């Protein structure tokens, strides 16, 4: 029999919260396939990935920021701005697709770096700087155009409609891109000095500084990475929706933060896994899928359930911190 001490020790490991989410995800899948006919198919899981590929990329960037002890509220707006820029550059200026993608990714990175510079050099709160970034990006969307821009570029439509057959189902190229980013992010976080510096800053910025780690450079790069991820998520979103619109993905920064928290990353920074975020994103997606399958529940239940889950996970995190 497992005694209490062992149990406490187990719950105190950083991986525990992430594992709980994986178990929750499996439970939801089992419960879903029990209640709804046709739920337990490979394609439902793949659709989960297809519909949430953009959120996954967004949440990966957010995980980096939160691991380093910061927060980035601008990601949703940067995503919208990217879709808008893609639409504008492709449809009005008739740039080629690769050039557009490279440009928006570079702009996203630059935007993040700019916020990182403000946060690091002027010791401004990440929260308020990225809030301003959120306003700025959303405002720039409206400057480009108030109406939705339909994208009919050949490359974008191909990316939108192309299906990669896999295990009797199919996934979109967006999913492959998102998973590639995921693998790269896991590698950087756990196997490079940059990753270790990030964890160190999240653990205690002052100590990291005293250890001689390049705190400033790392912090600025982390916000740059988050901006890059937001722009990439925007590109994926353009593939998915084939349009640019200023109101795209409103409030997705909250979904991203929620995914990170549900994925087991501590909001105080320093503890958590990029891989955990995947399960967080999938749990959020699963809630939406289940509500869609049920049909009788209204969309606002999504918000209430996400709020409830956030609460439960925050409570669990507090308990973990106490037992440690």
């Amino acid at each position, binding site marked *: 029999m497992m005694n209490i001490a062992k149990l406490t020790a187990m719950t105190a490991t950083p991986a525990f919260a992430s594992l709980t989410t994986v178990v929750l995800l499996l439970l939801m899948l089992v419960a879903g396939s029990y209640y709804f006919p046709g739920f337990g198919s490979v394609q439902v899981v793949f659709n989960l990935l297809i519909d949430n590929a953009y959120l996954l990329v967004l949440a990966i960037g957010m995980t980096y920021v939160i691991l380093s002890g910061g*927060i980035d509220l601008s990601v949703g707006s940067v995503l919208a701005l990217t879709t808008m820029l893609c639409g504008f550059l492709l449809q009005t200026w008739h740039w080629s697709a690769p050039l557009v993608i490279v440009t928006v990714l570079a702009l996203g990175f630059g935007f993040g770096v700019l916020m990182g510079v*403000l946060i690091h*050099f*002027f*010791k*401004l*709160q990440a*929260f*308020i*700087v990225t*809030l*301003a*970034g*959120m*306003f*700025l990006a*959303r*405002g*720039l969307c*409206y*400057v480009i155009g*108030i109406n939705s821009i339909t994208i009919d570029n050949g490359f974008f439509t191909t990316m939108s409609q192309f299906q990669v057959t896999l295990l009797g189902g199919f996934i979109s190229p967006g999913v492959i891109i998102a998973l590639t980013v995921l693998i790269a992010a896991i590698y950087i976080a756990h196997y490079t000095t940059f990753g270790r510096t990030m964890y160190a800053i999240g653990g205690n910025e002052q100590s990291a500084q005293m250890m001689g780690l390049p705190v400033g450079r790392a912090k600025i790069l982390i916000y740059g990475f988050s901006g890059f991820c937001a722009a990439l998520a925007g590109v994926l979103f353009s593939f998915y929706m084939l349009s640019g619109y200023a109101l795209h993905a409103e409030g997705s920064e*909250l979904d991203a*933060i*929620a995914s990170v*928290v549900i994925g087991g990353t501590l*909001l*105080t920074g320093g503890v958590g896994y990029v891989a955990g975020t995947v399960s967080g994103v999938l749990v959020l997606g699963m809630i939406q899928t289940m509500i869609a399958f049920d049909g009788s529940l*209204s*969309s*606002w*239940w*999504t*918000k*209430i359930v*996400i*709020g*409830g889950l*956030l*609460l439960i996970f*925050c*409570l669990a995190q*507090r308990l973990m911190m106490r037992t440690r």
Partner: protein
Amino acid sequence: MRLKLFRQHPLMKPLSAFLFLLLIDAIVIPGFFQFSIKNGHLYGSLIDIVNRASPLILTGLGLTLVIATRGIDISVGAVAAIAGTVAVLLLASPAFAHNPMLWAVAAAIVCAILCGIWNGLLVVGLGLQPIIATMILMVAGRGLAQLLTDGQIQTASYEPFFFLGSGYLFGLPFSVYIVAAVFVMMTGLVRGTALGLFIEAVGINPVAARLAGIRAGAVMLFSYALCGACAGLSGVLICSNIQSADANNIGLLLELDAILAVTLGGTSLDGGRFSLAGTVIGAMIIQTLTYTIYSLGVPPEFNMIIKALVVVTVCLSQSSELKKIWTMVRSQLPARYVKKTS
């Protein structure tokens, strides 16, 4: 000497920014300072600005205290939605046929206070980070409000209720009186008693405040509850003004504007230093800015960009790092360019 004291007054920066904005308006918008009396009501740009700013001022006032305790409340928009929805729903309910207005508004405020207490308990009782603790209600609260109205826009039909948000008393919009009453009450509360001092102490150092004998938890809980009440009241005002409850849109992005108003007013986001009058001026600046942008014929799309630039500028002007860098740059300059300051 007196001039210097005057110049160093914390309200000087927001006030001069506001006056500067008014000056621009006076020059570029014809008839900006003109008032006219129609049907015994005072009309004019300034009246309009004050009237439209009132929900923002109310929310900002509550938020000021929370920020002063080094917290943040991003659920104010959702709380406003809940309170407004509750008020409009109860007005139509037969159970409140007797004096529905009083009961409906009271119930809405009580709901809002409960929301505030919930936030406070999460922050104080469980020690969650304020931004995350209030994010839970921000996400779920709007869902709850939509649940109450079943996703529909609920129209209010009780005439006296509209008076709160769009009525006139002695020639001025009634909401102005509500804002003034709340402002006077809160100022009395924090400056007339030791509460303001406690809030500042908690904001500067919660542990030290507790060791000094201040019940830090109670002070924080109170500030969240009061912030909830203020947000609720502004939700009621918004619903009364638009004569309906649209759970999806009441107070949308209100939290951002409120934080901006508080910051503009000179309240430090690091806690410990706050100014209620500053917040009022901050909210007025935001509303005047919006009014100016619309009147100048600048596309309203630029509104958000200008707000973003204003936030960054204000934060930079408060940053001590910038001062350090500036001093460093100045010391590099040849002596004759530097004005002697002794």
